[in-house]
């Protein structure tokens, strides 16, 4: 994983997020003045849109959007900004997976890039959220950040988002699993995902530290 923070000029916060196969640009602007219909009396409204790499947004993107929204709203310090709006736009540049069958790599990249962009924009967050994708092969081996082929060959695929508090995965914010798996598999996946999230968190810290040091 590597992330280029403050990638864009015109928005308050942004990030170009690269994993070996998936690329997502995220932008965040806020708090800004909302349109009357978006305004919430006591908290920050979130305008979120996910755009696919090719073609126009479909129900598939609405679904990714819904999952990202659930994660982001649970970490936003929304009551700090009553009657304000935060615009979050996620543009997939490269899906890195077969788009008809999967959405897990994009979902994980969208969540992580969105968090980066929000941190860059200085929008208040009560914790971090980091997502990892785990593929479980037929022989039971679990691979974090699988490749396109590993996804195709997997028996089940899982995207897990952890809330990171004080540098450690604290609890599950979201889990999205498809395929064929047992109860023991779930625990194994959570375990692998947690290790992967810890690594991600270390990289995240490093990236953010580099940004803070520039100033």
């Amino acid at each position: 994983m590597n992330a280029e923070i403050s990638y864009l000029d015109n928005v308050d916060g942004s990030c170009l997020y690269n994993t070996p196969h998936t690329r997502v640009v995220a932008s965040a602007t806020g708090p800004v003045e909302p349109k009357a219909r978006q305004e919430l009396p006591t908290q920050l409204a979130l305008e979120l849109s996910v755009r696919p790499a090719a073609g126009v947004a479909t129900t598939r993107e609405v679904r990714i959007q819904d999952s990202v929204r659930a994660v982001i709203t649970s970490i936003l310090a929304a009551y700090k900004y009553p009657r304000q709006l935060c615009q979050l736009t996620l543009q997939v540049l490269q899906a890195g997976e077969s788009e008809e069958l999967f959405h897990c790599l994009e979902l994980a990249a969208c969540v992580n890039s969105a968090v980066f962009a929000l941190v860059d924009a200085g929008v208040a967050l009560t914790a971090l959220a980091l997502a990892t994708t785990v593929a479980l092969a037929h022989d039971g081996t679990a691979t974090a950040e699988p490749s396109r082929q590993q996804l195709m060959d997997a028996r089940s695929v899982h995207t897990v988002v952890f809330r990171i508090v004080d540098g450690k995965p604290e609890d599950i914010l979201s889990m999205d699993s498809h395929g064929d798996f047992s109860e023991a598999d779930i625990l194994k996946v959570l375990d692998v995902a947690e290790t992967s999230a810890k690594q991600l968190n270390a990289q995240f810290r490093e990236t953010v530290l580099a940004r803070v040091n520039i100033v």
Partner: protein
Amino acid sequence: MTSLVIPGDRISVDPERPVQLGPGMYCDPRTQDIVPVNAGVLHISESKRGQTVYVDYDSKRYTPAVGDLVVGVITGAFADSYRVSLASFSTPVSLSYMAFPNASKKNRPTLVIGDLVYARVCTAEKELEAEIECMDSTTGSESGFGLLENGTVVEVTLGFARHLLFDDAFPLLRLLAQHCKFEIAIGVNGKIWIKTEEVKDTIACYRSIKDCCGKPQEAFEEIIKQHFKTVTNTVEE
């Protein structure tokens, strides 16, 4: 004590003593936990009355806070106040006609839409529209606030603007002064108004400030020298 924090990190404050929360800190209304909500450098200071905690972080989007000195653009005029924009797309703030020196019902200020003003934030409640004033409300005098005529505006990050305004050791202004005479008004909302006698000097200052934003201080001198050289050369051509 300073260290890097990231949203969600635990910070050690004495729960028995009063804590003053500055920017970047948040007290969760449900759990009453004190957490940093921005990524930056954590400052904790002790005083007799209690502890003060804040996070110093850089961003582009300004949220008004009382006492801030800001540069704004008049975007509308109402019966008793102006609407002023401190940053594009942010909720506008209001500037009362009475918030000027020597203002009275009869003696109205004469600003028009598009004018730039230097002002101070006087109220900033998150639920309400913030208000700014163009005078020192303790003395009622002008104290440098008010209309900024001509010149131009450079937009920089908020952290850079704060350094420029508060950090006496920050070398930028001193270096600029070696090249030309200028008037400057620094808004912590990331807008810097600058005016010189000649357009070419303003251009050089504009480019210098813009370029220095985000660069290490050691590089400033060279950047500034370069820009002043270029503008002089362009004229000679």
